């Protein structure tokens, strides 16, 4: 099987974020970056499929500046065979521009399966993968927490609100991968890291499309107020519930 996985380099979500000087971006000083969690699971799913089907290859593609090469190398260290960087200064919003660039790269690849993470953890949008499928005219199964491939077709499962949908679709196809499909993305071993240094990583210019939407502004949400002890004993319960309803608005 020829499998492609599209991955994204994102900042570590545990950080304290600051808004950049232009008011429309995140200030990157001091931020640590890594592969988006869902993309890691997609890479892991691809590697597991490749292990089950002898002779398969896994190619990893990422769009962005040269820094994404580090992210691609991580996927190579996990066991992917080759990487492609679609070079661009940044990742435009709205999904369309990126999808066009990815589709252009994937179109002639002859891939049986193209995987994406369900969403990228920084934007939490989940647009690009489905758009790529549409642009390539391929079937697309989203948010899969189960995936089985046999012959030229596949079945999968995904959680929807209040239930589970079982899907079937032919290959080649695009799938977006959700939490639960794999138990954990494999940790790259030192052996893998050393081997990754020798694997091919092609750099090509990204043929970006038009961005339909742009980021006009970014701002930090209101500061979290300091916590307080509401009261003592069971008598404090009514006040707590009131606060949860009116202040925190979670009830």
């Amino acid at each position, binding site marked *: 099987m020829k499998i492609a996985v599209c991955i994204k380099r994102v900042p570590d*979500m545990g950080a304290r*974020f600051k*808004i950049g000087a232009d008011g429309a971006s995140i200030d990157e000083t001091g931020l640590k970056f890594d592969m988006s969690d869902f993309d890691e699971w997609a890479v892991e799913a691809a590697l597991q499929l490749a292990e089950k089907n002898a002779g398969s290859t896994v190619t990893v593609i990422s769009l962005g500046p040269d820094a994404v090469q580090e992210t691609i190398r991580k996927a190579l260290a996990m066991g992917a065979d080759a990487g492609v960087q679609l070079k661009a200064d940044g990742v435009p*919003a*709205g*999904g*369309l*521009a990126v*999808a066009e660039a990815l589709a252009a790269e994937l179109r002639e690849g002859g891939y049986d399966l193209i995987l994406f993470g369900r969403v990228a953890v920084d*934007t*939490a*949008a*989940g*647009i690009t993968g*489905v*758009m790529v*499928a*549409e642009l390539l005219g391929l*079937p*697309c199964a*989203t*948010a899969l927490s189960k995936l089985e491939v046999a012959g030229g077709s596949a079945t999968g499962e995904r959680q*929807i*609100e209040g*239930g*589970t*949908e*079982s*899907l*079937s*679709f032919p290959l080649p*196809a695009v799938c977006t991968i959700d*939490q639960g499909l794999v138990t954990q993305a494999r940790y790259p071993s030192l052996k893998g890291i050393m081997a990754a240094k020798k694997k091919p990583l092609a750099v090509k210019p990204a043929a970006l499309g*038009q*961005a*339909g*939407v*742009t980021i*006009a502004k*970014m*701002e*930090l*949400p209101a500061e*979290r*107020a300091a*916590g*307080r*002890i*509401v009261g*003592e*004993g*069971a008598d*404090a*319960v009514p006040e*707590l*519930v009131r606060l*949860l309803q009116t202040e*925190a608005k*979670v*009830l």
Partner: protein
Amino acid sequence: MANVLVIAEARGGALKKVALEATTAARTIADASGGQVHAVLFGAPGVGAEADKLGAVGADVVHVCEHAAFEQFDAESFAATAAAAAQAVSPKAILVGGTAFGQDLAPRIGAKLGAGVAADAIDVTMDGDAIAIRHPMATGKVIATLVAAGQLAIVTVRPGAIAVGTSAKAGTVQPLAPASDPAASRVKVTKLTTGGGKLDLAEAPVVVSGGRGLKAPENFKLVEELADAFGNAAVGATRAVTDDGWRPHSDQIGQTGRQVAPSLYVAVGISGAIQHVAGMRNSKTIVAINKDKDAPIFKVADYGIVGDVFEIVPKLTEAVRAARAQR
């Protein structure tokens, strides 16, 4: 003059609440620019009966697309049909609920129409002649405002973020034929199993966790009852109690367990050691109940009650049930 198209989600013949929320948002935009709100409703024959609910919240026209195959979700046919409807309506924005349904459809429509998509919007407005969309990013730590200047914008709306309005319009029903044959759709839903699925810790909007302060495994009943009272809560535990076998290891929240960020986290009888806090500190609202006023958990909690969990938690369970019953 900006028309707005809404793709209204219905499941099992019943309209979903988020469809009403999306229509309300569409109404607001349309009113700001003197346009119309058109809704598209897919479903098995008979779903058209739901159309007047859409009218009641502001839809001028409801295009009803009924087909036996539409008992199940059909992304390809829905997307093709919605795109065709958009050609006719020429909307400035297309809105859909940010559910599995909407997240699957919106990008397809975007690709077909060459438009960008903004997802998980908490607010959609007209800013001049551009659609402006506000949505949280980076696990809620940043709010971004996207604009689609002069162009069509596809937007998925976060369920529960927009209050359903009451600005009623005609809601004229028009039949709409599927733009592509459902039989030709390649991704088929072969089965839909409803309910069942235990609420996953990482996705539940509310998490209620118990720690050693509960003294014995039987007392976890208190935590389960409180979670039950919330209706949409999952139950978590600290490492101390999972190591002791009171709860399965998959319930453990902490450095070596699950890491969660629900809207509400209730820590019952948990001291708040670094091990545990590292797994839940990103929760939006944290409530702590513990008998030790110096327990570290109170440093990280938004609201705390000091006292005996065996007295407080049953009272809280009652109060939460009552509060929710009023909704």
